[in-house]
């Protein structure tokens, strides 16, 4: 998706390539999906609040229309054997997509054994003990704050 955004937006001269690179970096670390974040930033850049609202609306609209349309007829469609078989095939691809997502994101996110352990514990909490993801994520804030506190104290004592 990022290449498409680059092509469409930079070639129109809306923003420079450097600005876009900066926006992508901010989008990746901010809460929310990258696509929405970039749209908001580019919209803000061009026309302030109105631009951001319009840009986000633009990102959302096609999905909203297409999916609503599909959802209306899905119940009937799934009754058709061929459609059900195709969906099964796609589900297999979804399994593969999830597996590769774990590896790809993992390469960047898991920097040491401790974090690997933390990822495994998060998995266990949700999978074996049905603990809400909310709690797991809150725990991450607690650990993050703790780590920052320890690191900053260490710096001071040196």
């Amino acid at each position: 998706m990022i290449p498409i955004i680059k092509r469409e937006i930079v070639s129109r001269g809306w923003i420079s390539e450097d600005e876009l690179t900066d926006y992508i970096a901010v989008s990746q670390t901010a809460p929310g999906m990258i696509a929405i974040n970039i749209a908001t930033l580019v919209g803000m850049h061009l026309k302030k609040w109105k631009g951001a609202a319009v840009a986000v609306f633009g990102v959302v609209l096609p999905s909203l229309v297409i999916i609503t349309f599909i959802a209306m007829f899905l119940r009937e469609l799934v009754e058709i054997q061929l459609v059900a078989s195709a969906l099964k095939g796609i589900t297999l691809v979804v399994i593969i997509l999830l597996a590769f997502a774990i590896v790809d994101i993992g390469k960047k996110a898991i920097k040491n054994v401790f974090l690997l352990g933390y990822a495994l514990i998060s998995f266990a909490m949700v999978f074996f003990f049905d603990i809400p993801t909310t709690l797991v994520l809150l725990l991450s804030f607690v650990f993050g704050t703790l780590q920052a506190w320890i690191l900053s104290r260490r710096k001071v004592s040196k």
Partner: protein
Amino acid sequence: MIELLLVFMYVGLFTIGGGMVAIPLIQQEVVARGWLTLEEFISMVAIAESTPGPIGINVATYVGFEKFGVLGAVIATFGFVLPSFLIISGLTGLLRKYRQSLLVSSWFTYIKAAIIGLIGYAFVQVAIETLVHDDLPTMFNWKELVLLGVLAIIFYFLRKKPILVIIIGAILGMIFL
């Protein structure tokens, strides 16, 4: 309906990065609430993957529609988008300033590690629900396993074109499953 809005605001807030992250969050919220069965959720993800548009938004729209029709679709999508929109448009300056700060980067370090665990959860759940059949004497359907292997190899070589792999998956599914 307010519950729907809040659930998707929560998911939108914590979906850091691509849409894959949204899947385990939506899955747990939606299946535990009984809004969809795991099986329905999985076919929904399959559809969301094979239609244009960011996957997180597609899934939100679908769940909303299943619950409350068109209005539900709009509300779920609105909720999903709202947190990023507000944070990004209101706090870009702050984000730029504190992105490198020790506290914020430590938060993200742990959140990202936790997210790996959560995607792992989605992976295992989807794999079990799809591949393990209690009604078969052998538990597994060998055709599915072979197809999974073949698709994994295809995906490895066509990583840059996931849509193509999805189309291949759909065609192979129609032929063999």
